[in-house]
């Protein structure tokens, strides 16, 4: 008992400033948290719960939803061939992002990460597409790919062949979208890699060189392992970004021809919002949200944990 008492006495003496600190922190929490919490609830949680409820109704957006349909919206979505195509397209975006876009970004980053005036110019050029608004980029590319007026038209004319309409062709329209997506976003990932590469200690690279490592050896065994955290983050961004592709597609192909180039989000917009099937749109949105959350959680668990 005595021991406990002495402990209590000493601890109270030490605790005074700490308690003050705790009080201060509590006060700060009470003052600073509510605005953020209110905004988050109002603009994230509330709409999220809303669409979670609407997803089970057949509702055109007028009045309050009354026609409860259970899982019918989800069933309909799963069976709709256009949705299946859209989901496949979104998977394609993920695959191309990971297999083409990121390696390209890494390659370019390795070429131009050193601080020299020429490299700065290249960096700017490669980063420019990312700065451009998505809608503008989509429109510009739709003109480029136009078989009557575009760059494609100039090429076919110069070669003396029939005009070719890339975005009218069911089997190529989505490839065109993929090209634009890679072109649009590789600069962003390149910048992440450049920043990381500049943080790799020079003496490590020099040491590897002195030990006789080749240029490739240095990249493989020193630089890439050193920037692994950056790669992990950029893969995460690119997967989540791929699930959300929307504004490039609308001006470029508008989901066509024959609804062959929708992504999940343009599908949601076209078949949910534009047709005033708010319940159906919500069901798609909920599905997309759950997918994104699952991806995020698993990815963080698997790759983004701090090394023990």
């Amino acid at each position: 008992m005595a021991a406990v008492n002495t402990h209590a006495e000493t601890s109270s003496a030490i605790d005074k400033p700490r308690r003050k600190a705790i009080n201060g922190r509590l006060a700060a929490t009470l003052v600073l948290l509510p605005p953020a919490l209110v905004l988050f609830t109002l603009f994230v949680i509330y709409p999220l719960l809303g669409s979670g409820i609407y997803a089970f109704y057949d509702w055109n957006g007028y009045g309050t939803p009354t026609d409860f349909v259970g899982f019918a919206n989800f069933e309909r979505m799963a069976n709709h061939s256009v949705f299946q195509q859209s989901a496949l397209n979104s998977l394609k975006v993920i695959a191309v992002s990971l297999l083409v876009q990121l390696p390209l970004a890494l390659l370019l980053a390795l070429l131009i990460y050193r601080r020299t005036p020429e490299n700065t110019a290249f960096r700017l050029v490669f980063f420019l597409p990312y700065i451009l608004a998505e809608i503008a980029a989509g429109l510009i590319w739709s003109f480029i790919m136009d078989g009557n007026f575009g760059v494609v038209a100039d090429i076919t004319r110069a070669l003396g062949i029939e005009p070719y309409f890339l975005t009218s062709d069911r089997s190529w329209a989505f490839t065109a979208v993929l090209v634009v997506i890679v072109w649009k976003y590789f600069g962003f990932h390149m910048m992440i890699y450049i920043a990381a590469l500049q943080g790799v200690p020079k003496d490590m690279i020099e040491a590897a060189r002195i030990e006789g490592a080749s240029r490739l050896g240095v990249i493989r065994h020193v630089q890439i392992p050193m920037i692994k955290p950056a790669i992990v983050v950029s893969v995460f961004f690119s997967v989540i970004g791929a699930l959300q592709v929307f504004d490039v597609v609308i001006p470029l192909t508008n989901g066509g021809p024959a609804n062959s180039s929708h992504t999940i989000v343009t599908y949601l917009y076209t078949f949910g919002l534009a047709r005033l099937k708010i319940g159906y749109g919500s069901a798609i949105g909920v599905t997309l949200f759950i997918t994104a959350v699952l991806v995020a959680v698993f990815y963080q668990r698997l790759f983004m944990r701090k090394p023990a």
Partner: protein
Amino acid sequence: MKALLGAAALCAFAAMGAHAETSVKILRPESNSPGLKQFFTDVIAEYEAAHPDVNVEIEYFASEAYKTKLPTMLQSEARPDLIYSWAGLTLSDQVKAGLVQDISASLEPDYLKTFTPASLSAFSEGNAVYGLPMEARLVVFFANQSLTDKAGVDLAGIKTWDDFLGAVGKLKEAGITPLVAGGKDKWPLHFYYSYLALREGGPEGIRAAMSGDGDGFQSPTFIGAGERFKQLIDLDPFQPGVLSTAQEQSNTMFAENKAAFMLMGDWAYTQTIGVEQGKLLDGSLRILPFPALSDSKADQAATLGGVNGYAVTTGAPPEAVDFLKFLVNAEHQREGARRALFVPVLQGTGEAIEVPFTKEINAMLEASPSHQIFLDQFLGAQVGGTINDISTDMVSGDVTPQDAAERIQEAWDFR
């Protein structure tokens, strides 16, 4: 502090005083026509001069955004008082949800009688009137006679669908693109399917499908329309890349002599071919009514197009109705007609039209025994969107006439 609060209260009061006038808010989709915008500016200025206590504001939304945002806007505090409407099921849905009001009590019967019956019926149900039509729209074949002459096609001889298919064949042989259309926007292609359905079954056939009589949308009206459309598609009549051509682009291509025919609403003349663009093609531009089907029992003179106007939302002040009546009075109908912005809907005001193209459109509308509203509007957003989809999918060869009709029925059931 007190003084400050007092001052603030005073300011607020003064501000309220300044805004004590009633405001009437109009919401409409963006228009490509500077002339139409000028028309609104003029009418509003005139109204405000006569009613200093009323402030009329007009706001434009991009066309797609207008359609998708309207349900939210109508149910919010920011509800506009007058909304642009293509009538049809979308308007009925708004009526059902109690978001637009019956204004028949504030309309004199004598005034209502001056509307063309088809236009007024689009905005009323029984005795209830939910808004006023302002403009009539008509879908016709625009024809470029210099090109058809070159191919030896006699425009006056095109009366039936078979005549038309024959002309398309002749044009192909002569190396002239027969048809141009903006397939990227989908709805320009639905004009073919809708018009053919109208020719196959008439307005009755379309209404029978809606009420589920017989085979619903899988009736001969719609399957037949698909089959006729396929006859045309099999001739490969459209410009290369039709599915990636936007609607404005196709209008321009037609104006630049790139194709012999274009099936389009009369507004294309005002906006991209004629009035506002310096009368391209004048001299060679002809209008052709949609050809008839020789073996159909339906009235082959029916027309497809629009009756567009403004609905009055619930809770709108009486001034909104008053302004709407002012907007759609005989004088302004004549003025719009004179400027060739639209074909007016008040009987007799069409005389004011001076532009030959619009005159001809007006004559065709006046002669029409029944005017069917665009199916993509008439059947509401969901079914309308599906009709646009299947029309495009038929052109790309992905859908058979039977599948097309089945998909419309499915969309109708899931409405």
